[in-house]
Each structure stands twice: as structure tokens, then as C-alpha cells.
């Protein structure tokens, strides 16, 4: 197996009203090609920051993030962001039709999308949707369109930031199935931030627990949920199970 994403002692700070906030503190870890890593942890623990560092939407203050062996800062930025696609929680859409949004990644390169139907069908939408206003789609449809739009760039790595958290359970299940299909059929490496532990357990090959900017435990998903090693992981899992 080859390493697709590598974090080497990565730290990140923000300045919030003159106050320095340490969002990530010395994060290290590897993601194998074609695998799914689910990232869980409390709100504000730094999960989304980990994703944004992979396509240089944020820059690490210390350490290195390597994509396919190369530091993100040494990539051509546009090329990196096409190679490492991201889907956001709210599935933001630009004003315009579904087709306008779907073809956006190629329009940015001065190219036209030849086969929109292929992408629409792949994500379970129909050709009839193409002429509809993107902002009028339902949450589930928007998230599918958001994934399709990211796939137009043919990314090798997919970053998913709570992509099913705003959806009803049926839509969430369908989107989850779609993502697993992308992983299976295109061998796409996936880093998947989720607050849903059962989802993390279902879909992940590896699971990372992030608390207060540190990766507390990173282990094969089954082992992580059945036999966690760290005391903090046990407490976190028990607390969540207790809530349920």
C-alpha cells in the first residue's frame, strides 16, 4: 500500500480577537491510498482544520502535510485543489442552474463539460434536474450535486466535512452509499469527518479520534470501536453511547 496523505507533526493556530487559539497540536498520521479514514471528535476539536490543510485551504504553522509524497506548499495550488477535492457540510451552491454548478470545475479551466448526464446518473440525479436552480434542490439532492461537482475534477483524494449531518436519515444513508461506491469504483482515498459514530464505524477502514487539537488514537476502525487502547477514547465512546 502507498501512503496518499501524510501529516508530520502538524500544528495550526488561529488568532481570535487578539487571542492565539491552538487548533491543532503536533498531529501526525498516514492515510493509505484507496482507504477511508473517519475522523471523529467533539465540536471544535480541529477535525475540519485537518481536512482544510490537505488542499491548502489552510496552511500549517508547523510541520508538513504531504499529498502523494509532496508537501502541499510545493504543489501548484490549482492542481493540488483539483487532485484533493472537498465537499462541505452545507453543500454550498452558486446562483444558477444545476448544470452551471456541475460544470463549474471545468469552466474554471476554460473547458466545457461534455457529459453532464454521466455525473448526474452516477450520483442518482436525473438529466431533468440539470435545468433547475441549484439553490432550490433539497438537502440530499444538493449534497449529491456537491459530490458530483467535486468528482468532475476527478480527484484522487476526497475530503468530506460532515456531508450527511444536515440530511434526514434516508438521504444520509443514500449519500453514504454513494460515497462508498465512489471509493470502491474509483479507488478514491477518503478523509471523512463525521459526528456520527455509527457512521464512522460502518464506513471507515481507519478511525482517528481528535480531541483538543490532538489525535488521541488512530486505529483500524473495528479495533478502535471494539477495543480502544487509550483511556480518553474509551471515555469518549462511552459518553456518546450513554447519550444514545
Amino acid at each position, binding site marked *: 500500500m502507498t501512503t496518499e496523505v501524510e501529516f508530520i507533526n502538524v500544528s495550526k493556530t488561529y488568532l481570535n480577537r487578539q487571542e492565539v487559539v491552538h487548533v491543532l497540536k503536533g498531529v501526525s498520521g498516514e492515510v493509505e491510498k484507496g482507504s477511508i479514514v473517519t475522523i471523529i471528535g467533539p465540536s471544535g476539536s480541529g477535525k475540519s482544520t485537518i481536512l482544510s490543510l490537505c488542499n491548502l*485551504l489552510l496552511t500549517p504553522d508547523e510541520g508538513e502535510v504531504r499529498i502523494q509524497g509532496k508537501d502541499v506548499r510545493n504543489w501548484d495550488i490549482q492542481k493540488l*485543489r483539483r487532485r484533493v477535492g*472537498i465537499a*462541505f457540510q452545507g453543500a454550498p451552491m*452558486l446562483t444558477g442552474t444545476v448544470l452551471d454548478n456541475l460544470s463549474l470545475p471545468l469552466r*474554471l479551466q476554460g473547458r466545457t463539460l461534455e457529459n453532464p448526464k454521466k455525473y448526474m446518473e452516477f450520483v442518482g440525479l436525473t438529466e431533468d434536474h440539470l435545468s433547475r436552480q441549484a439553490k432550490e434542490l433539497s438537502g440530499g439532492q444538493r449534497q449529491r450535486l456537491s459530490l458530483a461537482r*467535486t468528482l468532475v475534477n476527478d480527484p484522487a483524494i476526497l475530503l468530506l466535512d460532515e456531508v450527511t449531518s444536515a440530511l434526514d436519515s434516508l438521504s444520509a444513508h443514500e449519500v453514504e452509499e454513494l460515497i462508498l461506491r465512489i471509493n470502491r469504483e474509483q479507488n478514491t482515498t477518503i478523509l471523512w469527518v463525521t459526528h456520527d459514530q455509527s457512521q464512522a464505524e460502518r464506513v471507515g477502514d481507519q478511525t482517528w479520534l481528535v480531541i483538543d487539537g490532538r489525535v488521541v488514537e488512530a486505529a483500524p476502525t473495528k479495533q478502535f470501536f471494539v477495543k480502544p487502547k487509550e483511556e480518553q477514547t474509551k471515555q469518549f465512546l462511552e459518553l456518546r453511547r450513554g447519550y444514545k
Partner: protein
Amino acid sequence: MSLIALLCSFGFVIFSFFLSQAFKLGLGRDLIITSIRATIQLLIVGYILNTVFGFENPLAMILMLLVMVFVATKNAAKRGKGLPRIFWKIFLTISIVEIITQGFLLGLQIVPATPQYIISISGMIIGNSMVIANLFLNRLKAELEMRKEEVVLVLSLGGSVKQSIYPILKQSIRSSLIPTIEGQRTIGLVQLPGMMTGQIIAGADPVQAIRLQLLIVFMILFAAVLTAIILAFLIYPKLFNKDQQLDISAW
């Protein structure tokens, strides 16, 4: 107009002050201060213009224009506080607009190259540019706050910095120009422009006054468009850091 008549006209301000007090609008202090300030400013400008018009040396006129651009820039730059080198970007924008517009008017001998014309017309160009710069910065900030997600989306899909911000720049330019365009749409129908009214009251031929006013309308439209576009393209690159991330935290 006699000094007595001018003093009598201050009655409007006093009447407004009493209205504000009666209806508890809380504007009394502002009304008085603004009126006194306007009086002092205009009197000083009047004496300065008298002096500048009396000089033969064009350097005096250039100095006067520089002061006008400086004051206009200082005012507009407040809106962009926190943006890197915003003062110089606005200074450069207003200067370019002034040079191009005046260059056109003087080069084609549309107006005579006398301080009376140059300074009066420059006042309109610079003042208008200042207002447009204010409106543009105000709108740009609001648009960026509202549509930050769109910028990040385009960047995340491999778009360039320019591609990510262009729709927002376009919207901000359009919005900043709306008052100028709307104002010109009803010109002459609802209100007669101040300068034209002044000329007509002073006894000038209304047709001649209208010709000069038309020149000013066209010039103001051009200066407005030019200001918004130049400022937009000077500002946007520094809204991003070297890693092509939107960085407006200081604004």
C-alpha cells in the same frame, strides 16, 4: 448675495434645530456643527481659490489638486481600514481618474486650461471618486461577509483567486455605481443640478448652462465607472494570502 442675506439664511438651520428639539430627534448638535463646519470650510476654500486663481504659477494649482486628492483619499480610506496599503491604492485611483478625465477635457480643448475651470471641475471629479470609493469598499466588505463561502468553494475546486472573487467584485462595482446612474436618470426632470442652477441664477444662458452640465454628467459617469474598476483591481489581490486563501481578518 449680501452678507445680511447670507446670515438670514442661517435661519433655516436654527429652524431645523428647533424642529429636532421639538420632536426629540437628537440631531440638534449635528445640525449646528455641520452647518458651522460647512461655513468655515467654504469660506476658507473661497479665500484659497481666490489666492490660487491669482497665481500665474501652475505649481500652486497642482498643490491645490494634491491637497484635494489627499483629503478625499483620507476620507475614503476609513472604509478600508485594515486593508494593506489602502490609502495609497485610493490615492492612486483618484489620481489616475483625475489625470485621465482632465487630460481628456484639456487635450480636446473641451474646457479652457485655466485654474477656474481645472479646479472647479477637479473638485467634482475628485469628490465623486471619493464617494464611489466609499460606496465600493462598503459594498465589497458586505458582499465578502455574505458570500465568503462562494469564494472558498471556487478556490476549493481549483479556481484562481481572480475567478473566486470576480462575481463579488462585479456586484460591488455595479452597486457602487447605482446611485450615480439613478441620479443622472431623472436629471432635469426632478431637480436641476446645483451648478446649472447657480449659473442660471447668475444670469447665464440656460442652453449654455445645460451644455456645461451635460459635459459634467458625462464626465461624472466616466469618472465613477473608472474609479470603481481601478480600485477593485488594485484591492482584490491583497484580499488573499500567498497560498491563495481569502484573508480579510484584518478588515
